[in-house]
């Protein structure tokens, strides 16, 4: 069958996957279109819930890149601090890494027989 990729443990077919997505998607849309009985249009149900705080203007509500995943990077400070420190931007360090890795590989290849 065209599009059937043998992976050694099974197979993958994007076409079958798309057909499945279409079927499941249509089912989801059907359920969604049945509606929610308690919903009332043009009431406060339509407004975003922000714990009673005043709504900000649209322009100032955009979350910039630096704020995204702040918690993730903060939690992994112990990993990130030395890693970022390693990226000095200094060409001497770039060259040193090449020399160090070359030495390690030479030793590994040399002793491995």
């Amino acid at each position, binding site marked *: 069958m065209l599009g*059937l990729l043998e992976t050694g443990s099974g197979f993958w077919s*994007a076409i079958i*996957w798309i057909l499945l997505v279409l079927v499941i998607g249509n089912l989801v849309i059907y359920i969604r279109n049945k509606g929610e009985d308690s919903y009332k249009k043009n009431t406060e149900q339509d407004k975003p819930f922000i714990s009673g705080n005043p709504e900000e203007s649209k322009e100032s509500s955009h979350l910039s890149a630096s704020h995204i*995943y702040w918690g993730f990077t903060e939690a992994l400070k112990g990993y990130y601090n030395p890693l970022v420190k390693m990226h000095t931007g200094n060409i001497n360090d770039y060259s040193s890494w*090449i020399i160090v890795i070359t030495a390690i590989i030479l030793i590994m290849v040399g002793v491995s027989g």
Partner: protein
Amino acid sequence: MNLSNHIPILIIAIPLLAAFLVPLISRINKKATGILTTLALSVSLLLTIVLAVKILTVGPQVYVFGATSPSLTLPSGLKFPIRIMFQIDAMSIFMGLITAVVSFLGATYSLSFTKKYDGVDKYYSLLLLLTVGIFGMEFTGDIFNFFVFLEIASIASVALISFRGVDLGEPAEAGFKYMVVSSVSALMVLFAIGIFYGEYDVLNIAAIASVIKYSQLDKIALGLLMPVLAMKAGAVPMHMWTPDAYSEAPAPITMMLVAASQASLYALFRVVFSLYNISLNTLTVGWIIIIFGLLSMFIGVTMAIIQKDIKRLMAYHAISQTGYMLLGVGVGLAVLANPEALKNYGITAMEGGIFHIMNHAMYKGLLFLTAGALFFRTGTRDLNKMGGLAHYMKYTTIFFIIGAAAIAGLPPFNGFASKLLIYESVYKFNPLLSIIAMVVSILTLASFVKVFHSAFLGPKLPQFKEVKEVPRSMVFAMAVLSCIIIFFGLFPDLIVKNLVHPAVMSLIEQLQYTGTVLGGM
């Protein structure tokens, strides 16, 4: 004269000739330089496709320079080849196809992208020379000739990375850094070539492979070649030049630099498989490549997540994706001496790794072009300053979504197909490696969700009210790459069966490689 016999050299000669014609043409008409470049590269692309069909149907091709017949590898009375030659098998042409597509689309995209810059004639000349260098690295069967093409590609790259202007500082600094690391690597490659020549009196890769003994000197040569080729491919921890160079180069050049890095990766695979093969300790060297892969995947993606410069972020992802290729092929090498394991999962792992090279060139090329489109219209690469651009750049947004989904390994795009091959085969070798690869994919998705949210989503920002979609030539290049990504995603079996599997087998079967030149096949 049968012109079809000369296709290998024409693929390189046409862009080389065009590179020297461009400065002359610019004296008459500056606009014609871009058109000439695009035309030359479109002819190269067509010829590469013709050659690919020939190689995949007839078998590997050789082109001997200066011989009475291009296929005369051993003139009468000689037991080893003395002339420079191109030796193009399924793996070489696989890489050649990537280079041809990427360089043609890079030139097409540049037609509009470079309008703001001065010295466009030099830009196109260098772009053509870079293409020549990459093609040469992939096609040559002579190790010293490889060094020459590596240098051509490196020198052209240095100038192109700095192209946006020495007065800007950062592009010049990135170019300088690339020049230093390239020089260090070139010297080490040259030293290794000297070892081979001193030991075996030949420079032809197939001829060296046929007599290689894996002596202490050969081990030193391998120890010099492996790290520098991995470094040029952007492997961690020698990757630090990559974010500098990729982010400062103009977007279409960054796409070409990805292809140049992959040519170095190809050279690494050619060295360990075609030159040394089972003469080396495959398990040790395989694990060295696997460790490079693991470090590249994980450190690349985690560094990407914290970036605020869109191109720098994508550069770290390029490092991370190179890790997948190293992992897949590394596993193949680790089990090369074990026929059962090689058959069970080694070949599939290599297919995943090699397929990922092509997929990566397409989606990473597309992503860099979308970043270039954003820079072209907004004048910034800082994600903190962007927002709401989907309102103004609808095509670019769609292309970005396709590229981001592909790199994150979401079905039904091409990245998923190659990653799936890697996950399932590597799992049989060592489950932990496969799990790390999957975690990296999730982090990749998270990182591109951040880019998508920061740059494209959100309300219309007043500073971007003048922004509009990029010109047609840029849209065309991105659209072609998107179509390729979707096609490869929908029909991965066609690509794996017709392009990837023959490429993998040409790496594994060293006797076929040497036999093409020395006979006895």
